[in-house]
């Protein structure tokens, strides 16, 4: 499995036809909607894969929108910054998201990732149902089950990485892959 940093490197080094989506910068609702439409347009020939990539995109882009610790002020706006990449090789689509986070959240995220990666498909279904029926935590603007959903859709372990900038902040990145459906090609 690639790490986020491998993927960045790959984009720098390989032909751009491997890149499906690459975005780095302030993420707004409008940009997110446009990128999601772009994904649908590009993957329209593979409807099943398209649904998966689209659903992963919405959950991970929302995480940046809600939680990125890097913000930019523009007029009255206060947008959060992150990176979203979708690249492909012959067999898989790789989806990567990254953003700056406060170090106080790294432990919880790693723990969640470990729990999720230890579960099989049915285990993930049960875990998602359990978490969905719990009252939302204060920090969670969604249902708090986005990562579980992403792992279920992907069918592969989540690859989570942290690069510590200083004692307060790290770069958080998450990679997932989705197997291409040969019959749809």
């Amino acid at each position, binding site marked *: 499995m690639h790490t986020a940093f491998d993927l960045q490197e790959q984009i720098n080094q390989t032909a751009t036809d491997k890149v499906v989506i690459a975005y780095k910068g302030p993420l707004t609702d409008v940009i997110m*909607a446009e990128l999601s439409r772009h994904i649908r347009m590009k993957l329209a020939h593979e*409807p099943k894969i398209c649904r998966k990539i689209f659903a992963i995109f919405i959950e991970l882009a*929302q995480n940046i929108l809600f939680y990125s610790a890097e913000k930019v002020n523009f007029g009255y706006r206060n947008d959060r910054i992150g990176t979203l990449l979708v690249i492909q090789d012959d067999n898989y689509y790789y989806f990567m998201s990254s953003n700056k986070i406060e170090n106080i959240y790294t432990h919880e995220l790693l723990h969640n990732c470990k729990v999720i990666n230890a579960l099989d498909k049915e285990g993930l279904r049960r875990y998602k*149902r359990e978490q969905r029926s719990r009252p*939302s935590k204060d920090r969670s603007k969604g249902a708090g*089950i986005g990562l579980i959903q992403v792992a*279920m*859709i992907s069918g592969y372990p989540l690859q989570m990485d942290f690069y510590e900038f200083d004692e307060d902040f790290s770069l958080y990145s998450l990679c997932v892959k989705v197997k291409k459906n040969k019959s749809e090609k």
Partner: protein
Amino acid sequence: MTESLESLNIEGKSGTFFVPSVSFDVNTGDCRLEGESYLENTWEFYDKLTNWLKQYTEKKQAITFSFKLTYFNTSSSKGILDILFLLKDYELAGGEVNVKWHYPEDDEDNLAEAEDFIADSELDMELISYT
């Protein structure tokens, strides 16, 4: 309050957000939620639907609820579950409830979601595939 209840109609939209179309008929109890659900304020949207249903159930009339959602994010799934809990409560209180879940034939993830909704809400849903 119940007497003044009117049908609830929300036009489905796909813009910056994805708003499902809502058609709740106060005369027939025929309620439909269709399209895609990814919303700016998920709780506000689904609260509106559950509040309407709560008021409707005071009329003690039958409800036929039909879901035909091609996409919903995880936040929306919590709102959908709230609707199902409400319908289950109504059924337990003696209300006549009939729920249909339409899913694209080739979308097993959508079907799995429906099965999990049934398990969580303990409400029977008729699962109907379409092409």
